[in-house]
């Protein structure tokens, strides 16, 4: 059933996202064409700087826009009038959440790919060759330093990136789901819940920092620093895997809270 739900979620997301990719690639292409007329003239500099600024803005906007499209799809398809159809389809609440999550993660990944392609278009030619050369050199040095650990760091980093995206999306889905419990100002409540979660995280981080600060200059801290110095490679693994586990815990909490509210407190418009 998730496969069928995904078919319609991908279709709905592609409609607003494809034009955005076309615009971003067009800006990148324009920037590249401008570079063919390179000169010391004022006109060239104005065109080049303007198109570069525009391109950088388009990259930033593309991620925000993709996220907004995914969240709007989640809200409208499940909690607006469309929910009367979506939630009476023979699919479970878990399948609905999974479909929205997978389609959103894929949309973010496609946007990342579109950004990489756009940057490649912008830098096509000698500059692109230099970037590849520099990247290869950096990787060579990286693997020389980290040896076999390097490959695992990359894998762990990709998993952390994926888990962070999933956790962030599920936090937003949970906020939207809590927001729909209100009779009025549902969007406002959703923003409030998201802000509340953000503040709670900031408080937790601050408390941890304070606890850490208390232990500075103590024997425990010294022993810990010595251990990190002796086992640097392992400690990086522990840090990455620890962060991964935190993101997974946040994801599971978001998933189960969203599902619980959908099951028991559904309040369609």
């Amino acid at each position, binding site marked *: 059933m998730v496969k069928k739900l995904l078919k319609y979620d991908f279709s709905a997301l592609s409609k607003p996202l494809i034009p955005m990719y076309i615009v971003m690639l067009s800006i990148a292409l324009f920037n590249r064409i401008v570079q063919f007329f390179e000169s010391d003239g004022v006109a060239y500099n104005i065109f080049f700087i303007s198109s570069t600024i525009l391109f950088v803005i388009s990259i930033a906007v593309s991620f925000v826009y993709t996220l907004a499209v995914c969240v709007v799809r989640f809200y409208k398809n499940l909690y607006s009038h469309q929910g009367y159809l979506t*939630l009476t389809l023979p699919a479970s609440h878990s399948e609905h959440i999974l479909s929205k999550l997978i389609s959103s993660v894929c949309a973010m990944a496609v946007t990342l790919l579109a950004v990489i392609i756009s940057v490649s278009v912008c830098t096509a030619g000698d500059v692109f060759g230099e970037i590849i050369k520099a990247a290869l050199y950096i990787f060579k040095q990286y693997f020389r330093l980290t040896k076999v650990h390097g490959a695992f760091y990359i894998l762990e980093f990709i998993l952390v990136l994926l888990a962070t995206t999933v956790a962030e999306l599920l936090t937003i889905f949970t906020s939207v789901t809590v927001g729909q419990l209100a009779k009025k100002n549902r969007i406002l409540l959703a923003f409030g819940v998201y802000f509340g979660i953000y503040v709670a995280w900031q408080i937790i981080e601050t408390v941890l920092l304070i606890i850490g600060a208390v232990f500075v200059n103590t024997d425990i801290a010294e022993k810990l620093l010595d251990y990190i110095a002796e086992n640097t490679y392992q400690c990086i693994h522990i840090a990455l895997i620890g962060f991964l586990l935190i993101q997974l815990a946040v994801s599971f909490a978001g998933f189960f809270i969203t599902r619980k509210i959908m099951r028991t407190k559904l309040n369609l418009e």
Partner: protein
Amino acid sequence: MSELLKCTSLTKNYGHIAALKNVDLVVEGGKIIGLLGPNGSGKTTLIKLINGLLVPDGGEITILGNKPGVESKQSVAYLPDNDYLNPSMTALATAELFADFYPDFSIEAAKKMFGELGIDQNAKLKTLSKGNREKVCLILTMSRKAKLYVLDEPIAGVDPATRDYIISTILQNYNKEASVIISTHIISDIESALDEVIFLKGGEIVLHKSVDEIRNENNKSVDELFREVFKW
């Protein structure tokens, strides 16, 4: 007759307000049932509970022995009382969506009805008139061979000619072994099609009888009895 829908001491509250109070109800197959009552009597709450869009605070509800869930949703064809389809999809694409999810949906039947009603199946729903969008909703619901049809206010807000078409569409297209629950205020237009009626008042069932029983015992039409029971 098979027991399609069973409610036992079904209760639903909205805060301190009781929308349904200990409702006991059994609906068997092969019946067209009018779910009648004034605004706020609990009709839509009952319908939402049947469709799993609300969870009861007390009691139990089963559809063919299953609590509302994935299995029951395969057996129930639901027509909500609002514009619930994605306006950026065409009528045909929406029919294909129904065909994808409901094995009992007949896309041929839907296309036939689109044609009969002159609905452009390739037009986006947002470009259709409100009346035509309502017809699309009805066509999609009635193109299923479901066990239980639950229609929430299907004839409200449409002209009398469309009302007649809607009633005839319901009568011609529903699965004869199935039951149809129709929630409405407009009783006179639909009375002749009904086998049974349920009167809901303040969240309680105050009457559940066959139309023949009402005519024989009360010597009144359903419309007349409704006006008497719900007189202010």
